[in-house]
């Protein structure tokens, strides 16, 4: 995984912001001073390189050790013991406790051995006791139990950091998790109460350069007991065999990048330990430990922490799956409840937002919108309605997709910049063939939803204008990269959107089909009704005409019989013939009534402005002889309004009502009153709108009508009395009058009690267009 040589910089090159990704951190040619390093040629087992600090540790200059073997430090028996490991040595470290017999004071060291880059690496860390401390299994056991039972990723991480802090005693232990874009977030943390929390802080990807990530995949644990150390160079700087600095990827003492030390200084960290967390061969995150003062952690303890890191990595999949499954379960459950709402609401659109869970609750999003038939209903944090309309217009310019999604809308449409705060991420599920019908889900720009570590720090400059080497300055550049970007939509969220879309489409189709079927049925009924109305009208018309002809014959022939053969008939015969004549006359009256009724509804109305004062006067002129004959006085309580109406029909109505008032009375002198109900006056037993209607009345003091007959009197040919009583009549008059009033958009009704007179009311709309 090392970078190609040609991309590496010369060891002497100045490292700055522009090349820090190319800094060759695996070949620093230096170590940390808390131990010393000897590199041996595997064949000769002679020292080819040594760290300069052997002088401090052993009292021997590095140059003195070059070309010698371990026998310079150890008793011969020990040398053989150590050398026995060399044959099987790989990059995986092996640990031995050694007493340096030949060094004054015979100090104890831990010897960490590995073989890499054509060298045997012997790293010596000083300890008080040469015997390796056995790992504390009870502590490990407790830590493992805590980690195993965690049922969520977050609890899993939290327990891990707590255990690591307990075991190591660092001031702060945090789990740092990488996003797909390699930026990091402090996901779990355990810290000393004096320290400010870092939980939730985000760090740009450039904080950990590419080559460092590559190295962290190989080397699980990095340790800096004192960040203020002075690097100790190797002597010589280059491997004599290869002519370049040796690859220290697996060296525990490796000296780190000066940029990293600057970074630690910035964080206020004097000692750190980081453990890689690896999933599917990718760096998932790190356990990072910090201490405010230098802190030396024993190799065994570091080994144990590395074990925890590896166990964590192994368990990670199952913990993430738990989370994913829990989320999936929640999404499914809410989706099911949403579908219930949709089915139970008369208007399925309302089912999407009226009750919880709404469309916006099914999966994690900032807000949602339901765009249907030109209406937009929003939930949570969304762009404004006009902005959503712009978005809909843009969506329609795109290739049609059932479910469109993006987590960086502004990169597709520059107009999206205006709504990045609410809608950098968008899912648009198209609902129907009709354009503009969509379900929308929104996610805000990430940069707005998180806290940035060191956001407020200003870039610092050296006097000569060169940029000060702080990783923090990469923040602005990084921010440019993630701006306008939302957390990506997960496959399960897109699947849920698709399912909701299909469900709604199904419901819509069902509703549409039902409506369509109902409209068709209604249409057919209307057509049938119209046809049957037409048929009825023409039937009445034709029947009346055709009925009249034979009837006229019966009538005439009866008369001719009476005239021509009267002398041959006896009184009874003559009487029977007269009855025949009378019946034929009544029959003619009935037919005429039927004809008029059909005509009242058949013919088009000729609407004109009619002065009711004039019209009533005209009708009264016509009826005057009959009024005089029956002793009737008609009082008009005027003035009457002008109305929009069909003149002939209005005449017919007035004529009919006045004639009835005159006929149905036993009194010798009769008074009939005709007038209009004033605005605001209430009409008994019926609330008729006197604002939009003129309400006329014709009131008599006649025989009255029993309320139980109030409906009957408007039925065709319905009479309440014998044919020869009250001036006869066919009983068609009120039916015809009622039909004519209704043709005008009004209604005709009666208020009356037996023997207490009757008042007929009819209403006419003040504006002819009122139905």
């Amino acid at each position, binding site marked *: 995984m090392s970078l190609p040589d040609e991309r590496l910089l010369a060891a002497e090159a100045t490292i700055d912001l522009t090349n820090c990704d190319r800094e060759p951190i695996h070949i620093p040619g230096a170590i940390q001073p808390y131990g010393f390093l000897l590199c041996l040629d595997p064949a000769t087992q002679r020292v080819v390189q040594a760290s300069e600090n052997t002088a401090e540790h052993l009292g021997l200059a590095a140059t003195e050790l070059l070309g010698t073997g371990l026998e310079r430090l150890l008793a011969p028996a020990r040398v053989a013991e150590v050398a026995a490991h060399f044959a099987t040595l790989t990059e995986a470290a092996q640990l031995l406790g050694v007493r340096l017999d030949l060094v004054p004071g015979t100090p104890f060291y831990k010897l960490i051995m590995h073989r890499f880059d054509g060298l045997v690496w012997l790293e010596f860390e000083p300890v008080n006791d040469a015997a390796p401390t056995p790992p504390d299994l009870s502590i490990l056991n407790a830590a493992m139990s805590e980690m195993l039972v965690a049922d969520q990723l977050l609890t899993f991480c939290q327990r891990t950091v707590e255990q690591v802090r307990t075991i190591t005693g660092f001031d702060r232990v945090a789990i740092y998790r990488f996003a797909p874009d390699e930026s990091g977030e402090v996901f779990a943390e355990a810290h000393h109460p004096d320290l400010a929390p870092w939980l939730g802080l985000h760090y740009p990807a450039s904080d950990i350069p590419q080559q460092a990530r590559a190295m962290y995949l190989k080397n699980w644990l990095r340790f800096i007991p004192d960040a203020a150390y002075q690097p100790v160079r190797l002597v010589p700087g280059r491997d004599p065999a290869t002519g370049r600095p040796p690859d220290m990827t697996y060296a525990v003492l490796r000296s780190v990048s000066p940029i990293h030390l600057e970074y630690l200084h910035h964080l206020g960290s004097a000692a750190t330990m980081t453990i890689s967390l690896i999933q599917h061969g990718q760096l998932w995150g790190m356990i990072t430990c910090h201490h405010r003062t230098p802190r030396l952690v024993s190799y065994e303890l570091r080994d144990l922490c590395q074990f925890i890191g590896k166990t964590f990595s192994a368990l990670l999949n199952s913990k993430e799956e738990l989370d994913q499954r829990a989320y999936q379960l929640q999404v499914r459950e809410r989706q099911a409840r949403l579908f219930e709402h949709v089915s139970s609401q008369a208007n399925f659109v309302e089912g999407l937002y009226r009750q919880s869970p709404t469309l916006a609750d099914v999966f994690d999003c900032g807000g949602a919108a339901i765009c249907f038939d030109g209406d937009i209903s929003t939930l949570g944090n969304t762009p404004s309605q006009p902005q959503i309309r712009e978005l809909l217009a843009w969506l329609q310019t795109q290739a049609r997709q059932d479910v469109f999604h993006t987590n960086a809308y502004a990169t597709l449409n520059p107009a999206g910049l205006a709504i990045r705060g609410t809608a950098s991420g968008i899912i648009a599920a198209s609902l129907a063939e009709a354009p503009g019908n969509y379900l929308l889900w929104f996610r805000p720009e990430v940069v707005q939803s998180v806290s940035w570590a060191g956001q407020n720090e200003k870039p610092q400059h050296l006097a000569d204008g060169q940029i000060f080497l702080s990783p923090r300055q990469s923040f602005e550049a990084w921010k440019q990269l993630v701006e306008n970007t939302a957390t990506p939509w997960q496959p399960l969220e897109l699947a849920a959107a698709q399912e909701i879309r299909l469900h709604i489409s199904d419901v819509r189709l069902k509703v549409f089909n039902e409506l369509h079927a109902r409209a068709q049925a209604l249409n057919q009924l209307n057509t049938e009704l119209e046809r049957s109305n037409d048929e009825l009208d023409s039937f009445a018309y034709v029947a009346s*005409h055709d009925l*009249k002809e034979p009837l*006229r*014959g019966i009538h*005439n022939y009866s008369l*001719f019989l009476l005239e021509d053969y009267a002398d041959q008939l006896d009184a009874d015969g003559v009487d029977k013939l007269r009855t025949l004549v009378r019946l034929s006359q009544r029959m003619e009256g009935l037919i005429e009534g039927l004809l008029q009724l059909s005509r009242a509804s058949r*013919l088009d109305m000729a609407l004109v402005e009619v002065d009711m004062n004039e019209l009533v006067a005209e009708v009264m002129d016509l009826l005057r002889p009959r009024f005089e004959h029956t002793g009737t006085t008609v009082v008009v309580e005027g003035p009457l309004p002008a109305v929009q109406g069909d003149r002939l029909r209005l005449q017919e109505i007035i004529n009919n009502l006045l004639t009835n008032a005159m006929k149905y009375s036993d009194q010798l002198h009769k008074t009939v009153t005709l007038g209009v109900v004033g605005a605001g006056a209430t009409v008994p037993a019926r609330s008729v709108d006197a604002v939009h209607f003129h309400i006329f009345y014709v009131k008599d003091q006649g025989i009255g009508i029993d309320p139980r007959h109030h409906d009957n009197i408007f039925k065709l040919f319905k009479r309440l009395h014998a044919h020869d009583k009250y001036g006869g009549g066919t009983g068609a008059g009120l039916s015809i009058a009622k039909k004519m009033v209704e043709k005008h958009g009004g209604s005709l009704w009666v208020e009356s009690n037996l023997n207490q007179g009757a008042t007929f009311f009819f209403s006419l709309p003040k504006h002819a267009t009122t139905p």
Partner: protein
Amino acid sequence: MNTFPLKPILVVEDSAEDFTALGRAFRKNVLQNPVLRCEDGDQALTYLQGYGKAVGWPAGLPAIVLLDLNLPGTDGRTVLATLKRDPVLHTIPVIVFSTSSSLRDIEECYQLGANSYLTKPIEYAALEEKIRVTITYWLSASELPHLN
């Protein structure tokens, strides 16, 4: 060739009973003119368009035509329209004599050129009166066009 002493009147009427009543009313009013009857529209048109020569009746056109509207086959409206479009026949007064009191029928007949429109009353007495007025008006009071 035979000719009528007085110009005939033509009655186009399919109903025998109505024609009987009409004849009775003519007699009551002492009508002098001969009365010709056609039972349907086609007969009436054949007679009139042949100027009387086609059916063996004495030659000559009628003084007036009393025309029923509802006739079998070619109905009264068509007869009326045909007569009023004819360059010669259109001057003969046509009096529509119909059961219908419908405004639409009345309006239509006058539009087609009817000279008068009478509704057939059910009361015989009323019929007799209408016939009296009609005879008096058209055959006594009026000067009619000279066609022959």
